[in-house]
């Protein structure tokens, strides 16, 4: 299931390395809970992009659930 529009992500590139972004494994953490997900990142330096739809959608939802746990 996709929580954001990937075409939006494809349009960005790493400014430092002039590299396109590719999906890669990333860990996210909140209130001591850690999750392994896949996010777009720079193939060279590993700079990670969190798309808006993900931040305001699924991520916010999980944050809320964890806060009320």
């Amino acid at each position, binding site marked *: 299931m996709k929580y954001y529009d990937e075409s939006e992500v494809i349009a960005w590139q790493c400014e430092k390395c002039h590299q396109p972004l590719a999906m890669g494994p990333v860990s996210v*953490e909140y209130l001591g809970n850690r999750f392994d997900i896949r996010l777009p990142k720079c193939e060279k330096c590993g700079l990670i992009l969190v798309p808006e739809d993900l931040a305001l959608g699924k991520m916010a939802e999980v944050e809320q659930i964890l806060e*009320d746990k």
Partner: protein
Amino acid sequence: MDQKTLTEWESKCIQEEPPECMAACPIHIDVRTFLHYVKSGQWDDAYKIIRKTMPVPGILGRICDAPCQARCKRSEVGEAIEIGEIERACMQMELPLPRSLPMPKKDKHIAVIGSSISGLTVAWDLSRKGYRVTILEPGHQAGGSLLGMDPKKLPPQILSEEIKKLEQFGVTITINAHIEKKYFPDSVLDSFDAIYLSMESLPGKILLSESKTGEQIQIMPQYQVTNIEGLFAGGHSDKSRYSPVWQAAEGRWAATSIDRYVHQTSPAAGREKEGPYKTRLYTRIDGIVSLPAVPVSNPDTGYSEMEAIAEASRCLQCECKECVKVCPFLKKYNAYPKKYVREIHNNATVVIGAHKSNKLINSCSLCGLCEQVCPENFAMQDLCIQARQDMVSERYMPPSAHEFALQDMEFSQSSKFSLARHAPGQLESRYCFYPGCQLSASSPVHVHEVYNYLRSSLSGGIGLMLDCCSAPAYWGGYSDLMKNKMSELKSKWVELGKPCLILACSSCYFIFKKYMPEIEIITLWEIIEKNNNHLPLKHFQHEALAIHDPCTTRHEGTVQDSVRNILNSYGIQIEELELGRKKTTCCGFGGLMNNVNPDVAREVIKQRADESVLDYITYCTMCRDSLASTGKRAIHLLDLFFPGKESVDPAKRPCPGWSDRRENRARLKSDLLRKLWRENSETMEAHEKLNIIMAPDVQNKIEERRILVTDIQQVIYHAIESGEKFFQPATSCYKASFRPHQTTFWVEYSQKEDNFIIHNAYAHRMAVVTEGGSQ
């Protein structure tokens, strides 16, 4: 909250108390629900309600004398609802019988002597409990005194059909039963486990008076137990008039006593609410249009279906909900305090699963209006503040709930804003002006002007304190934080020589009065009132103004009076709102409501703004700004004397955003230092020097998302310094992020010379874990 406290809280809310009709009914028919179904034409459901409680409904439903009507609230605004007639109409509808499951049969046999309404009730109730019941009717036809009823109300055919239904249910009916008076009741008790004597008809009375010569048989009312073991009696109504429902009630109580007698259980336990009782339910009838009863067009047949529906539609559907009616927050969660108490209790005691009511608890504005309008003074604010304090101390307060507000408080208490000084050139202060954080944030010009005014009109030295009273920490339930901050504040006050603080914010007034009682305080309004007419009126208001009292002045009649006295002395006409003074409403800012639940906060202030068509006047900056945020024309009391630039209508001043509020505070401090103390204090951090440009829609978006300009500046500054950013060739836009504390901010921007044009910004609290730390 322990179980006892929970029960005490729950019992304070009377919404679940029964309505008058149900409490008045000797057998407690749920009349309100019945009428609700009739009103919407749901006759099947209406019938089910009657049948659930009423014995032999086909008979009693037609002849009930409806003592409930004497206590109907409708009678206070028109005539009582014709409940008896509506019941009769329902019984005439020929509705299908609801399925009822027979109980397992019991090996006990009960005799019912006489077949009037109380006897039939005993037979009805006990046969449903699985007893073998035999009705011994001395007459040659079952029905007893019911046979003498008006045949238009109770046609003989219906009576015999209803009695037949009892037989179908397993009740045996013996007519022409001969009972030897001389040997009564022993002769009957030989064959039965208990006897019920139906007293409405003559045989019962004869048996009772003539049996067992010499012995006076007594009946204990409400239990219908006699002084002879195994003998129960009732239906002999002492009332001056004939009352079928009272007789049925006596039959019901006798059936309960018989059941307990046979099972040898406590005869009296838990029977306090049998028969009519007082109810605590309150129903306000103000504003309800008086309506007469719908006339019965044909008395012989009673109400037609449509007449009955029309009559049922007059029912007020009594309920209290006084607090829910005035509070959008209480309305939002679709219940009432009794339910909320339980939810809040469960939220605290949940072991596995989510704390589902965190948001409910954090959404209350703590304004205390519920307590004022509640007939029992239920104080939702006390419940919520206690729950919040527990959530903080037990460490399950959601971190995001109040973080933004607490950061704002921290800003006010930091060196960027806070200041405590004697007036320039003075070494002591009799008074000290304490404008509060939000007046400074929203309208710094008022702080400048008022400070000048105070210094020119009071003697003894007038110091100045810019700070925050810690109200946000109080509202959020952060007691320790509040204590620490208050003690810092007190030290500053002691250093100034313990001056009397002149307060311009009612929330500050509330906090100081309640939590720092050693500090002498007075409101700015009382000072202005005492120096009457020294202040020239500069904003002329010709139309009357509706006055909105801040909710934190609810119990401060003197403060409210001062404001009114000022307005009167300047000849300004005021209109009192219906919910004013002790019953004033919150603006949605109190209790950090707008921080936690902006939707409800918007409803709260919208509701307030719609109460009058006049412009509003208030004496709390946040109230004024909240009103202004709805588009309502509203002025602050200080606008009358210090309206600012002539070109700007103070009633139309927009509600400033959160970034402006910070900038205004920082600038106020540096301006005051420069103008009054000749000090230069500009201490801008590097990122604050970045020039940010935003279109109004982007500004609104970041305001809603609680992202400050300083957050955006930090992201861009970090992107420039580290080079870590993304680029989109098609749009020439950059995207970068920065995580100063617990939140990661993302900004999409483009650069034009020295200006940064912001296209979008968003944030998340979840941290992306990288090898070097969190991103």
